[in-house]
């Protein structure tokens, strides 16, 4: 089994890359969740133009591929704004976050619609505002419905973070590529299969961590609602 | 009652059959012999395991202990050098070709017409040509009074019609033993009659052994050769319908019959 192990320096590099990957996933998750909630609610707005604007965003951000959006963000958008360049971390978080937000919005919308109508009617009877209704009545009930698919979506975004390596951000995937390129000049080249298997396992661990975090959240939200 | 002269079908012999689901022993060392061509009706309280008798004969549930013979051939065992050993799937399939079952919820293949439902097994299992299977399917569907519904999908048929297609589908395999598991229980009351009519004809023909679990006591007393009262994994008592329905030996049988007949 020794053969499956890399040397300490290489693990150090992979760890640095992993930390960058974690930054990208946290940033993308934050932006994606913000967009998901805003656009998911907007899809159910009374005002037609708001609904349609949200729909345009969702169709656009889902229809375009995350990787194409990423390159466009990194290389085309700065030029359009007259800026020389955009930090790759920012471009990565924007592209992945906006992409995630579009998928997340559909999850949020579906969950809100799954909350029984009677709940809305009850808030009207209690003379609550729309905002109070969403915050205190609808969202708390929508969260248990949102969490399971949202966990899967987050793992998809984690997998997507590997794409930022292509715009020169030193994440886990790029560290692996750098080690591969250094093989050419190295005296003791790393067997690439072992390198990539190690990298895949690190992604697997990150994915399992995300899955476990969501399981904890699911359990907590289930407890809040008792057996229903 | 039916004429006794031309009885065919296969015998069924269950010896010390045990079947348990976890802690729950559903068949408790059950012994049961059914003669070729006999019509046996099994009654008993729900949860008593009477359906399980049919299901272990059909191999839908595997038995834990004991033996079952169909026409003198072991269903779950093979003789190897004089020793009884667990049977291979191939052996089970070969014995199972004598048995077929009709279900409470029909279990028709929803993606096939009535005709295709009846044609499938003869073609795939018996190697009939499509033409032969088609002719047979039409005959059988005519026999159950559905000659005009050949190309209807199950979703276009009433419950009673579905159940008659299911019976025709089983008949197409020319089984020697037919098992009927509460075949009228899922039907609206006005549709029960058409299914019972078909069953009556089958029973009267004496061409096969029939074992049925049913709550249709009228039908049981009219057509059954023997009625079994099944309770707690065992046969509590058995006998001709006249005896069992009118003068049962056990108090539990009386209580059960009173409860069933009063509603």
């Amino acid at each position: 089994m020794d053969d499956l192990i890399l040397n300490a320096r290489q693990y150090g590099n992979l760890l640095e890359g992993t930390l960058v990957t974690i930054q990208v996933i946290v940033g993308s998750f934050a932006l994606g969740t913000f967009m998901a909630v805003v656009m998911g609610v907007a899809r159910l707005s009374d005002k037609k133009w708001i609904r349609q604007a949200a729909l345009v965003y969702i169709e656009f951000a889902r229809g375009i591929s995350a990787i194409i959006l990423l390159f466009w963000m990194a290389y085309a958008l700065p030029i359009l704004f007259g800026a020389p360049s955009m930090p790759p971390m920012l471009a990565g978080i924007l592209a992945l976050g906006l992409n995630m937000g579009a998928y997340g919005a559909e999850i949020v919308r579906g969950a809100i619609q799954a909350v029984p109508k009677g709940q809305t009617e009850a808030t009207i009877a209690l003379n609550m505002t729309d905002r109070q209704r969403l915050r205190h009545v609808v969202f708390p009930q929508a969260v248990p419905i949102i969490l399971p698919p949202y966990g899967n979506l987050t793992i998809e975004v984690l997998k997507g973070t590997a794409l930022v390596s292509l715009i020169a951000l030193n994440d886990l995937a790029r560290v692996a590529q750098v080690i591969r390129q250094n093989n050419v000049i190295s005296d003791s080249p790393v067997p690439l299969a072992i390198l990539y298997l190690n990298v895949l396992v690190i992604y697997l661990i990150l994915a399992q961590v995300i899955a476990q975090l969501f399981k904890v959240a699911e359990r907590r939200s289930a407890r809040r609602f008792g057996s229903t | 009652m039916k004429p006794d002269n031309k009885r065919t079908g296969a015998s069924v012999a269950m010896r010390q059959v045990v079947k348990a689901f976890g802690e729950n022993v559903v068949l408790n060392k059950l012994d049961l012999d059914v003669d070729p061509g006999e019509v046996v009706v099994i009654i008993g309280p729900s949860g008593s395991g009477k359906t399980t008798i049919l299901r272990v004969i059909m191999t839908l549930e595997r038995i834990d202990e004991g033996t079952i013979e169909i026409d003198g051939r072991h269903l779950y065992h093979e003789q190897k050098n004089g020793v009884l050993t667990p049977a291979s799937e191939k052996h089970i399939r070969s014995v199972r070709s004598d048995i077929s079952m009709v279900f409470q919820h029909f279990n028709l293949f929803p993606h096939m017409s009535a005709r295709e439902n009846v044609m499938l097994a003869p073609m795939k299992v018996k190697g009939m040509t499509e033409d032969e299977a088609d002719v047979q399917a039409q005959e059988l569907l005519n026999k159950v009074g559905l000659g005009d519904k050949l190309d209807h999908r199950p979703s276009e048929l009433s419950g009673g019609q579905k159940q008659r297609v299911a019976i025709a589908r089983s008949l197409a395999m020319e089984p020697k033993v037919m098992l009927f598991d509460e075949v009228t229980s899922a039907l609206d009351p006005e549709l029960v009659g058409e299914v019972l009519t078909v069953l009556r004809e089958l029973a009267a023909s004496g061409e096969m052994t029939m074992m049925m679990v049913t709550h249709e006591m009228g039908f049981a007393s009219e057509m059954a050769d023997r009625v079994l009262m099944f309770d707690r994994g065992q046969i509590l008592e058995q006998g001709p319908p006249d005896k069992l329905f009118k003068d049962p030996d056990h108090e539990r049988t009386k209580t059960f019959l009173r409860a069933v007949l009063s509603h």
Partner: protein
Amino acid sequence: MTRWDWDYAWEITPGLIQGMLTTILATLLGITVAVILGLFLAIGRRSDRKWISYPLAWIIEFIRSTPLLIQLFFLFYALPLITFIPEPIRFLSPLTALVVGLGVHYACYCSEAYRAGINSVDKGQWEASTSLNLKMTTTWRSVILPQAIPRALPPLGNYFVGMFKDAPQGSAITVAGVLFVARALQSADFRTVEPYTIAGILFLIVSIPAAIFVRSLERRTFYET
């Protein structure tokens, strides 16, 4: 410097369309691999033999939880160096590596869609098949799959669209798809706005109608019993 040059845009569009056709080709080949392999994975996962079903479940989980991009790197860079694998298998052309990568990755997703479809087939269908003494292969082919596959079609359609969006990752292993062409233009002409914008538009032109078509599949009704 003008930010958008129409002449330049027109000039590069044919090349980008050419790249797009390669991306579409990879997707079509990849989905073919995925739907076929995925079906076998789904059936294998239902096997009574634990030495088949357990490893399959684990492999599917592993492939689904890790980035396609790294899997492509593995196929393209690492596989050729594994000397005990016969040469025709380990030396994959870029397009073949992409098709295999997409196909295997999405086969794992497809197997879940099939599995859900298979599980949704009523237990009575298996029992009726037993009572008619059908062979296992006949039961699968004539009874179970004809009911399970239509139910799996909407998610399979979604994976088709999803695969199309992942196919440009082939540019990282030198498949000359739409993104590869755009990147080549960037390094040759030092222009980014037109190549990447046109690539994005081409993408939307294909993927939005495809997504709408898939959603119309979801609204179809299926057999009732």
